[in-house]
């Protein structure tokens, strides 16, 4: 998630503020990426990291690293896309007005990001949601190995297949609780930054 955030937010801002040839194509690709089927991402990463693949020498297949790669590919376009549209939704005249008050390009960009903060936070929530609810890709590239690459979602799949519905349900509730706590934290941040301006 951190990796997707580090890549996604600056790229989203850059795409929102810069005009260059091919920008529309890149935007269309990002939007396509927002709807990537996770299992297809899993297959792609699997092929890249398998022994015969171009990155097979890394030995990452069925490790946490492979799962991180897959989840970063899934979440990054979501964060880029939402950040981009949030920054674009800030009044376009604001940037020029801040520049007219002596803001450098960086200071103006930072202020624009601050104005778009609620949208960016929503992007992070969506990215986080896509990661914690993901099964197909992590199952493919992680292998669901106990103690190494098993995560809550893949454990739920396994327990359901075994017929341990109570345990699977309990894991599901834990997953939901984690998501709820994380989202409550985001809502608290939104409220705090919102009240800053009061």
């Amino acid at each position, binding site marked *: 998630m951190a990796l997707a955030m580090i890549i996604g937010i600056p790229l989203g801002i850059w795409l929102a503020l810069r005009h260059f040839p091919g920008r529309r194509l890149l935007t269309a690709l990002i939007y396509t990426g927002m709807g990537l089927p996770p299992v297809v991402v899993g297959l792609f990463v699997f092929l890249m990291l398998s022994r015969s693949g171009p990155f097979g020498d890394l030995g990452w297949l069925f490790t946490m690293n492979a799962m991180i790669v897959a989840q970063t590919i899934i979440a990054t376009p979501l964060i880029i896309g939402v950040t981009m549209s949030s920054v674009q939704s800030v*009044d376009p*005249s*604001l940037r*020029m*007005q*801040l*520049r*007219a*008050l*002596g*803001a*450098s390009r960086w*200071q103006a960009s930072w*202020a624009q990001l*601050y*104005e778009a903060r609620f949208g960016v936070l929503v992007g992070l929530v969506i990215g986080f949601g896509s990661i914690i609810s993901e099964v197909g890709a992590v199952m493919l590239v992680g292998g669901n190995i106990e103690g190494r690459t098993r995560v809550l979602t893949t454990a739920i799949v396994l327990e359901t297949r075994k017929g341990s519905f109570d345990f699977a349900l309990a894991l599901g509730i834990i997953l939901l609780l984690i998501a709820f706590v994380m989202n409550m934290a985001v809502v608290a941040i939104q409220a705090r930054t919102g009240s*800053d*301006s*009061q």
Partner: protein
Amino acid sequence: MTSLLYELEQVKQVYGSRTVLSIPALQISRGEIFALIGPSGAGKSTLLRLLALLEAPSSGSLRLHLDDRIVTCEDATLEDRRRVAMVFQRPVLLSRSVRQNIAYGLRLRGKRDSREQVEAMLERVSMLPLADARPHTLSGGEVQRVSLARAMILEPDILLLDEPTANLDRYNVSTIEALIRDQHARQGTTIILITHNIFQARRLATRMALLLDGELVEVGPTETLCERPQDPRTAAFVSGDLVY
């Protein structure tokens, strides 16, 4: 004694295939209140953005005389740009308190301990009771006063005002005009103001220029342009016959 501040020669601004501004020559002196008058779409705002160094002219030269240096949009440093502040016709405030909006420019300049200065400015623009209000709760006149305050607090050498009283009631017009006069009297700030209101230009400016369809029609002392215009279009505009 006045000294040259802006010097424009053969300045043209072209957007796509459309020439929106064409000025053969224009000079503005340090310390004057200069009005740009003309109807909507005359190129006044474009000229103001050029003067603010926010845009470079498509052709010609625009030189800003600062101390012993001459700067252009291309070679102006951030410090040079910070000697000019501009207030827009439709101000956009940050989604922070009025106080934080007014302090914004100072913070950009690394002046974080500016509480007293901000309080004084809030008082000056009669916004002290609304210091902690958020922008969306303010009226148009209040937003415009905050916008003026956040520029004036920077004590710029040059203050550019794009229709600062457009769509405001008489009380707010009079308040803002008083603030403009006060700023000029206190710090000798050069003020360049856009207005389509000839009466406002007469009340505030010592010199003015008429722009029509991107063309500079006439420049001169306000009284001369109003009483003895050389160009028939100026005569038509000041008499109210030229209606767009």
